[in-house]
């Protein structure tokens, strides 16, 4: 379909020229974003402009939730209240035990001249919405650079690890869920003490424990908690429960499927946990200071 205007009208560059120009420009952006990670500042600039519109867009959802909260029945509220009171009682009992254990632990660690565990800062945040991008599993939370959130911090809810902050904007940040295809979490099995790394599967909301030998001591129902050796996730947070173990001697590794412990897709209130910045130096000085879990590839 040739389309050529009469030459005596001035109409600027031809359609094909304009199309080629903008396509090449987009392709350059795509490559520099996917491979080189140069454009964070540009992205943040646009994000600041879009922020009011994003808040406007997420308003109807928030509003309907608020209205829904307003019309709860008395009995449901009462029941919830009772439940919470019971839970608080139980928690306070275990908290008291915890305090005595903590002091004991500190004392023992001092005796053994071990490094003290560092208490971490956390920032409470609310999940605004899930991303429209169908290729990744991410959510957006309502805390950003202005509130002190930094990229790489862990995000947890009351049941366990939800994900990791991957991009920060002035008032929002983007959390990649642990079920995302490129997200890896270093874990330790509670029962056997085995260490490993879970990877998200991507499409069905489960996790996979990769690179475990066929005879590894992992059973259905094993709880996997963060091992804390990466310095990103605090140690001892529940990550997932093993739901299926497939051992086939033909392969080098067992196929272990786990379901996340936290409400990865349903959490609305989360905590952003600061990363541990006082990691000891790596013995080899050439090596980078801390291995980044996100860079882990198959």
């Amino acid at each position, binding site marked *: *379909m040739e389309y050529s205007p009469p030459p005596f009208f001035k109409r600027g560059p031809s359609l094909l020229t304009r*199309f080629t120009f903008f396509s090449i420009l987009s392709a*350059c952006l*795509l490559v520099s974003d996917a491979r080189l990670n140069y454009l964070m500042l540009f992205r943040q600039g646009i*994000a600041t402009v879009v922020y009011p519109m*994003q808040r406007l867009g997420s308003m*109807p959802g928030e509003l309907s939730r608020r209205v829904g909260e307003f019309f709860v029945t008395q009995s449901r509220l009462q029941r919830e209240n009772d439940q919470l009171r019971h839970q608080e009682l139980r928690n306070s009992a275990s908290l008291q035990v915890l305090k005595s254990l903590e002091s004991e632990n500190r004392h023992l660690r001092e005796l053994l001249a071990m490094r003290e565990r560092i208490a971490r800062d956390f920032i409470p945040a609310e999940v605004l919405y899930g991303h429209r991008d169908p*290729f*990744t599993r991410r959510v957006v939370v309502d805390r950003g650079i202005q509130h002190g959130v930094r990229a790489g911090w862990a995000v947890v809810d009351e049941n366990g690890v939800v994900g990791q902050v991957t991009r920060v904007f002035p008032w929002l940040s983007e959390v990649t869920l642990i079920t995302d295809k490129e997200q890896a979490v270093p874990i330790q099995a509670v029962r056997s003490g085995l260490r490993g790394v879970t990877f998200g599967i991507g499409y069905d909301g489960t996790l996979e424990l990769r690179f475990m030998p066929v005879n590894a001591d992992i059973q259905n129902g094993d709880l996997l908690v963060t091992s804390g050796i990466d310095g990103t996730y605090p140690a001892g947070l529940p990550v997932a429960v093993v739901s299926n173990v497939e051992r086939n001697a033909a392969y080098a590794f067992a196929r272990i499927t786990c379901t996340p412990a936290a409400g990865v897709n349903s959490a609305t209130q989360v905590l952003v946990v600061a990363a541990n910045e006082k990691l000891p130096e790596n013995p080899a000085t050439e090596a980078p200071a801390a291995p980044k879990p996100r860079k882990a590839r198959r």
Partner: protein
Amino acid sequence: MSFNWLRPPLSGGRAPPQEILRPVKARYIALTLLSALVLNLFALPDLLNQIKPDLIALTLIYWVVYHPRRVGFLPAWFLGLTMDVADGSLFGQHALAYAVLMYLAILLHRRILMFGMRQQIVHVAAILLLSQFIMLGVRMLSGADFPGPLFFIPSFLGAALWPLLFNVIRIPLRPRTDPDAV
């Protein structure tokens, strides 16, 4: 030069009768595109979010087809970048898709105008699908998995919305007074 290819190949539908509209102000075009952006950013429950049609793409096609030369590549491209930031997708993914969409829409706009509403929907669906294929290709090249057949539903829903969009955008453009009144 022969213009045979401009004619509808089959006499299936008739082009909608030409309406006389008031002149379109640049401000109005900007307003429609901005409202499309805000509507695109609406946060819905998960499943609905995935099949929600891309209203910016649809609005761009409308302006290019019915008022060519009013919307250029540059605003479309910047809207694409904005969508990339808001969606958290690869930077330039939507921008590239919108560039392709603009190219196709400008190329086909005379042809689309000759068709009736139903055939126009088919054309719009084809353009939207192609721009989605571009996005899919870009993401698969960068290592993502195919997200499932649900991925293509926004194109068809968007095309189904075409008659509605056509009528809604034209409301402020229709003459205010009845031309037959004396």
